[in-house]
């Protein structure tokens, strides 16, 4: 029943910089199925955006995919020409960016920017495209859509702009929607509106959604499955309930313990010590071990492989070599090593 929409295998993405070549994504595999939402979480700079841009083929000019495979509907993207890839973008897969204030072109009307993908990919006439654009704006809950078409981005609030971005991304009914922190710049009330919207539309259109965020709350709200990244690596992946109820990587646990709980006044924060390492910082063994309170000698010398724990749940940590157990009773998740 579950149909694999996007499959990424061993993706390595690197950048040419003044300091030489750096790898921002160090070999990542995951997949997105039709109708499901996969969330990528992780701290700033861990490579979330670069992963998604690699999929879209929109890496900055100094970046390139070093190795790995990206399959969309079982078709390998890296074999496609620029032109073929372009025809997929906005059509089969589309993307929403973080900053609604800068992601829309300030000198073109909303209408123009909305019509563009329709005319491009569906070869609609201008008037047909306009009709559809109105429809799209309606769909994303913008009042007075006909009037909006003639407005410019600066005349809209941040929430409105993000809606326009979503409308634009959904214009051609893509099968894959990538949303890179679509709500980070917005207020909670607006964030809730936008997340609801993405969820509704996902269901309606049966899309696969790849949602990038660093907010565990958002993850809990929208994800079907979760992938946790740390310093360019995937360190844990699993169904959302598993990740929250049975996190198996100390980093994931650390993340969960760092978020204050609105509903629990007694909750005590337990920060992860230290900072994320730099991209080309040389760390032997597990890249997380300097910050890990469970670090063992082994962790310092040998990078852990991926351990499969249960259906769809895997973690890259030596602790899982033994049996991991969780304390179901306390609200707090810990690993008894």
């Amino acid at each position, binding site marked *: 029943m579950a149909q694999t929409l996007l499959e990424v295998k061993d993706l390595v993405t690197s950048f040419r910089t003044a300091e030489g070549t750096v790898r921002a994504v160090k070999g990542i595999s995951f997949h997105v199925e039709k109708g499901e939402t996969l969330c990528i979480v992780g701290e700033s700079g861990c490579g979330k955006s670069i992963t998604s841009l690699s999929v879209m083929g929109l890496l900055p000019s100094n970046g390139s995919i070093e190795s790995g495979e990206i399959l969309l509907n079982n078709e390998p993207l890296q074999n496609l020409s620029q032109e073929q890839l372009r025809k997929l973008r906005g059509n089969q897969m589309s993307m929403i960016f973080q900053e609604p204030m800068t992601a829309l072109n300030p000198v073109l009307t909303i209408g123009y920017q909305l019509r563009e993908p329709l005319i491009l990919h569906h070869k609609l006439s201008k008037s047909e495209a306009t009709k559809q654009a109105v429809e799209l704006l309606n769909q994303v809950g913008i009042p007075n859509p006909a009037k909006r078409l003639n407005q410019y981005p600066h005349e809209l609030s941040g929430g409105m702009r993000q809606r326009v971005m979503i409308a634009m991304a959904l214009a051609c009914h893509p099968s894959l929607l990538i949303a890179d922190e679509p709500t980070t710049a917005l207020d909670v009330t607006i964030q809730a509106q936008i997340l609801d919207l993405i969820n509704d539309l996902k269901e309606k259109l049966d899309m696969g959604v790849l949602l990038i965020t660093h907010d565990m*709350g958002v993850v809990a709200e929208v994800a079907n499955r979760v992938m946790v990244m740390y310093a360019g690596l995937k360190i844990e992946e699993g169904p959302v309930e598993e990740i*929250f109820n049975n996190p198996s990587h100390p980093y994931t646990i650390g993340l969960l313990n760092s978020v*204050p*709980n*609105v509903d629990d*006044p007694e909750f005590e924060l337990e*920060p992860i010590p230290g900072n994320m390492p730099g991209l080309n910082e040389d760390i032997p063994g597990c890249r997380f071990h300097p910050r890990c309170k469970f670090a063992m000698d082994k962790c310092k010398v040998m990078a852990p492989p991926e351990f499969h724990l249960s259906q769809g749940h895997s973690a890259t940590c030596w602790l899982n070599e033994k049996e991991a157990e969780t304390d179901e009773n306390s609200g707090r998740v810990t690993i008894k090593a």
Partner: protein
Amino acid sequence: MRTVEESPSKPEILLELNDVKKYFPIKGGILKRVQGNVKAVESVSLKLYKGESLGVVGESGCGKSTLGRTILGLEELTDGKIKFNEQEIQDLKRKEKKKFVKEMQMIFQDPYASLNPRQRIGNALDEVFRMHTNMPAQERKEAVLDLLKEVGLKAEHYDRYPHEFSGGQRQRIGIARAIALNPSFIICDEAVSALDVSVQAQVLKLLKTLQEKYNLSYLFISHDLGVVRYFCDRVLVMYLGHTVEMSDVTKIFNHPLHPYTRALLSAIPRPTMQAKRERIRLVGDMPNPSNPPSGCVFHTRCPMAQEICSVDKPAFIEHEKDHFAACHFAGQSLSRVLG
């Protein structure tokens, strides 16, 4: 009906605001005349007690930062009174104000922008002492090193530039600068919002430790209700420059009186797998603060707005002990009002 009033059992008042207003004039037209005002802060009254953290929450643009800056005198006060340690400070001259500068400090949102990129952090901290004390160089240096240690940095960081630090470390430097002169009051303007969760937790812990150690009072501006719940003793909710609700954290979070507070609370994504709760979704955006709605400023987005709401402005009154709200239907449930 009583307005904000002191209850005798409470500890000493450190800061008291009375009807504080801050308007920004809008200039326009051919002659650049003042054509209107952005009413960024409209009539805020509050009391802050020694050693407590008062959270200020609300959506972007509701006037949180402006309030903080106005208290520090970084923005000229439009109207109202500010009392600090029993003394009115709003009309003081630059010179007289100087001793309050030491008492009141601020920590900023953006750890990348709040440090001068061309100044070594040692110098940046040293400068604070140079401006306000007559300590000799050697003593100052020691004081700076102590400060660095206090916020969890090392002596070797003294000669580094800001760009050589991570966001969390920079925020620690910002904190060091704020506590350098032993203030009694610190305004944290979104002090942790730009940080990653793991680092955010570190910084919050540090702030708490310092508070206990030095009996600091915080005005903690944030839009993250989770952080506020964790960090603050009392909370002030603002909407469009107005105060809409104020009380203890527990009261606010457990039974909020104002529909805006409720909406805000229900909008927060919870990082747990507990059953999803009932949601109140607000529609639309915040109105333009230069042209606020009549009556209750929230009525345009309020799910339980009635006719009276667009006409009468509700007063900010104490509905139960230490729980203030500005709503005609404060505390009533949605279904009852809509009836």
